């Protein structure tokens, strides 16, 4: 489903990604861990083209991403749902409107493009959005403004927006880092349920090791821009963890 081949990226004279190789089967869920500044977010963003790698290849659904062609980039993005740490919702509009935004990539031609720009959607799409809101558990908030919601509710809206895309792949960049422990668990359960029930492939950047151990069967660890562990979660030993999060003299970055 996703294959990353020897991706390299330099930012401000530092190798943020230094030859990353990784591949995912369809329907798989992977936890991506590593200390701050190890390149997790950059790696995720090369997959939907917000970061253009200096060299290497990213292949999604059998097709390599063409970073230079805006149209083909857009076609790739349609298939990939993105979930953010800070939810990235439009605060001053309703929940439903935010969820509908997920359909924009699909409805990008002819009448659909014009009507969606005016703000009109086919009843089928609205019903779908309501159904997704029910799926994530906040259908009663559909007409509320987003700025009145709690953090957990906002992340549910963001998840519904991503699902509205009918994605083949979900990228979640620290989806629970801004939530309290109880809400975190619920949101993570929801994401895993989406992976299980809908069979959507998922890459989830996480910070908390216990959460990873309890919920994911495969874990990939990044350190200084390269992968230092990739395997079944139960094979992740204390030595590995110490190795991943040790004090790194070269970058001067202290692991959490």
């Amino acid at each position: 489903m996703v294959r990353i081949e020897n991706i390299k990226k330099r930012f401000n004279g530092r190798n943020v990604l230094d030859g990353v190789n990784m591949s995912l089967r369809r329907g798989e869920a992977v936890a991506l861990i590593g200390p701050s500044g190890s390149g997790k977010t950059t790696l995720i963003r090369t997959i939907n083209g917000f970061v253009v790698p200096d060299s290497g290849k990213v292949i999604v659904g059998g097709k390599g991403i063409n970073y230079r062609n805006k149209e083909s980039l857009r076609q790739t993005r349609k298939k990939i749902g993105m979930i953010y740490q800070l939810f990235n919702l439009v605060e001053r509009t309703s929940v439903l409107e935010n969820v509908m935004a997920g359909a924009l990539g699909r409805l990008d031609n002819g009448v659909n493009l014009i009507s969606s720009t005016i703000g009109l959607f086919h009843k089928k799409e609205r019903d779908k959005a309501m159904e997704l809101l029910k799926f994530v558990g906040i259908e009663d908030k559909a007409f509320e403004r987003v700025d009145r919601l709690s953090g957990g509710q906002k992340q549910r809206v963001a998840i519904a927006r991503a699902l509205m895309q009918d994605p083949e792949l979900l990228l979640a960049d620290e989806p629970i880092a801004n939530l309290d422990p109880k809400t975190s668990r619920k949101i993570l359960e929801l994401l895993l349920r989406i992976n299980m029930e809908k069979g959507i492939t998922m890459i989830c950047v996480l910070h908390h090791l216990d959460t990873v151990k309890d919920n994911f069967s495969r874990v990939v660890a990044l350190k200084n821009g390269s992968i230092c562990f990739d395997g079944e979660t139960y094979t992740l030993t204390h030595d590995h963890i110490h190795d991943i999060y040790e004090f790194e003299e070269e970058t001067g970055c202290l692991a959490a």
Partner: protein
Amino acid sequence: MSGSVSATYVKRVKGFFLWSLFIIIMFLSFRVSNLDIKTLVEGFSYSVSLIKEMFPPDFSRWEKILLLSIETIAMGFWGTILGMTISFPLGFLSAKNTSGGILYNISKGLVNFLRAIPDIMYAIVFVTSLGMGSLAGVLALALSTVGLLSKFYAEAIESIDRKPVEAIEATGSHGLGVIRHAVLPQVFPLFMGYNLYLLDHNIRAAMVLGLVGAGGLGVELFTQMRSFNYQKAAAILIIIFAIITVIDRVSAQLRKNIIEGKFLSRENRYKDSLLLLIISVIAMLSLYFIPVNFKEIAYGIPRIWEFLKGMFPPDFSGIADYIKLMLETVGMGISGTFLAILISIPIGVLSARNVIHAPVIYNIMKEISNFFRAMPELMSALIFVAAVGLGPFAGVLAIAIHTAGFLGKFYAEAIENVDPKPVEAVEATGARFIQRIRYSVFPQVMPLFNSYNLYILDRNIRASTVMGIVGAGGIGFDLVMSMKLFEYQKTATLILIILLTVMLVDWLSSYLRKKVV
């Protein structure tokens, strides 16, 4: 589910009625202001031919212009100083947390009342009672400064941090000690900023007060325009713009330094002290230009009293006509706002740094809105009257040009402050460019735009009440005439109607603004 469907249905019906009401109001407003495509095109060509007549500007009376410029700046300066002195205690008295009881209510009511009346109306009152000259201007500016500045002061005082106040209270200090050591240090930089802003504002206003005989460059401009000496008028206009622009820049820079704590800081100590010294010397010298004739003031005060006494009882016989006039005036404000919005949407979008990546373009656009903003509307109304003739259309144009400067700036700021996070999220769904604008930028800026529009509408309705002073339509003409004909009882009725409308619009606008954001 069914509940929400009927909720959307009700919303749609409500939306339909509100839109229809909006369209009807717009239509009526255009009608009363003689605003349509044809008049707009004609107005444009008339204005161009007037500007052609202004060239080349005639600077032959430069000594007079120079003296009047100094007089104008002096008026602005002393109006501000006087206003500041009164506002300082009044600000504390009208702030919720440093005042209380009946004192608070009286001060707050007084401040609101003073703010509701445009400075040019004070100028008319002082000119009729104290005679022509810059003293009337200084007093008028002082009164309108009190209205604005006391409110700014009070707001600053009300938004202070409670914690240091409590700490000083905990030491057992008396009330004044708390104000001096816990409140004042917090609000002082803000106060300084507001004072400078008011100084800037007042010098600009002083340019205009001359139109009713209250001294300064305005008198000369009015005389030259009335006698069709457009080349001489152009020279005055150029000087006015030069002064306004320079003062605007200096004041903006100083305000920035004050807010950032750089003013009178260690490294700028000597430079800033020198600047303050120069300003004080100029201020003292400029006092020479304000003829404070105590004998005249002594005569004047009974005349103000007579004027106030003469207003009672108000004469309500012409009230139906006045209300009609007031509605027309409101229509002018609405049309002016509409035009201003049309002009400022392209300006705003093109001067936003995150939309246009070419500094040349956004800087030019920002300069255009600065220029529009700097142009006092009564002055441009005077020019438009010369170009398109007497009547509301000239007033609408003047209001539109002036406030397009404000809106252009506000829009650009709103667009520059758009949160990029949701924009990226919508882009990540694979949406097209228009869709991204529609679903991530639009919803973020629209509430702000509407709020600014409502605020500008409120101020424009207020501004259109005085347009009549230079013959640019609305109720202002009858107001001035009633005063010139000593029909003070009619004046009272007119002032009452204006005040009521202004207060109503103010309330409606702030109510709606709370709803849209």
